[in-house]
């Protein structure tokens, strides 16, 4: 228990968390601090490029693991299953209607790549490594949850939530997935030699860029919370901090079943615990325009993201270490 607290405290005082907090505070104080949209998008491209490439290069380095395919498969299954759990919880804990509840559920089945990046940074601070292909697991977990949510609506909700033609293709080929998977494959193909060439760009400055990026996330989350706090009923708020550990427990089970390293288990837990705020909201605006965006964005970005960043990840790390004995 002491270990967890120490870990959480150390995490809370890391520059990336503090810059996130600075962004939150600046937003609450109505400062006009803002990162230009193009710069924010540029930084997220950088992060996807770097994390994908490093994952691929690490696979090239360690060789293909027998569990690679099984990890991908379990990831897909969890992304399908998590929204169902989230939906049931939401219907019990809040007064959201079927559409809104399904839309929120889709977000919790999918993943947040920035939370994933933050977790890799925490585990490497803790001296742990992880399977490079966890990046690929992250990629395959983005989309299935969206299908799950649409299925829930078709089953329990009004008609009219049919999967629009072309939408699935759009989701699978969205920019983030293509860049992440593409960089992963290129990192894999070019291996150590490729890594040598671009390491000064993607390794050394990584933490610094992440700080600025999280500053922006803090600003965005803070502004979102400020303008949408009305939608945050106590039930929803509770869901936003209870669902992540539930997801993480499933991720823990999967990670242990696969026999992943301690670091890999933490990443699997983090993926299951995190909620999407980029790919899924866009898909929801097209497929379920009736669902209220302030509900799902405020929950995933304003509640669950900060929770995971500050308390969640250290908790998952502590639990995984205890269980794997790593």
């Amino acid at each position, binding site marked *: 228990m002491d270990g967890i607290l120490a870990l959480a405290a150390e995490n809370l005082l890391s520059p990336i968390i503090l810059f996130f907090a600075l962004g939150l505070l600046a937003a609450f104080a109505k400062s006009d601090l803002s990162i230009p949209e193009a710069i924010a998008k540029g930084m997220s491209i950088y992060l996807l490029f770097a994390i994908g490439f490093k994952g691929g290069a690490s696979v090239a380095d360690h060789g293909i693991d027998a569990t690679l395919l099984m990890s991908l498969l379990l990831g897909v299954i969890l992304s399908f299953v998590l929204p169902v759990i989230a939906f049931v919880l939401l219907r019990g804990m809040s007064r959201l209607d079927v559409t809104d509840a399904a839309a929120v559920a889709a977000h919790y089945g999918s993943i947040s790549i920035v939370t994933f990046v933050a977790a890799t940074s925490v585990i490497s601070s803790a001296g742990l490594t992880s399977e490079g292909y966890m990046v690929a697991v992250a990629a395959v977990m983005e989309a299935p949850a969206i299908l799950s949510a649409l299925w829930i609506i078709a089953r329990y909700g009004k008609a009219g939530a049919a999967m629009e033609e072309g939408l699935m293709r759009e989701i699978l080929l969205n920019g983030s997935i293509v860049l992440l998977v593409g960089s992963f494959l290129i990192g894999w193909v070019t291996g150590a030699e490729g890594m040598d060439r671009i390491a000064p760009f993607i390794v050394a400055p990584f933490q610094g860029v992440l700080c600025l990026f999280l500053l922006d996330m803090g*600003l965005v989350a803070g502004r979102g919370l400020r303008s949408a706090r009305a939608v945050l009923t106590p039930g929803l708020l509770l869901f936003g901090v209870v669902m992540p550990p539930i997801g993480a427990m499933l991720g823990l089970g999967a990670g242990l079943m696969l026999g992943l390293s301690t670091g890999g288990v933490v990443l699997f837990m983090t993926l299951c615990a995190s909620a999407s705020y*980029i790919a899924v909201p866009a898909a929801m605006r097209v497929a379920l325009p009736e669902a209220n965006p302030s509900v799902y964005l405020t929950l995933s970005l304003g509640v669950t993201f900060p929770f995971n960043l500050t308390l969640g990840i250290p908790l998952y790390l502590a639990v995984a270490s205890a269980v794997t004995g790593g």
Partner: protein
Amino acid sequence: MQTHKAKRVEITIESVMETRLTTALIKAGVTGFTVLPVLGGSGRSGQWNREGQVSRAGGMVSVVCIIRPERLDGLLDAAFSMVDRHIGLVTVTDCEVLRAERF
């Protein structure tokens, strides 16, 4: 200089719907359109601002379409089918254009 009567239709819609809208417009026989960026706005669904969107889902664009008056109805039908379930705004203004042969 010789000018010709036309209609200027302006459709403000979520970015994520842009391609769907323009595809529908082309299907409705529109020969051209111009897309303008939108920085922010306010309406029944609250206030928003481009800087401070993490999500592709955020943001809107404004699609401007100059057409001959007789084609207005087809265009409005196409536009309406898009904005119906979605957040959006459609305005029509009378205008004059040079080089009418282009529309």
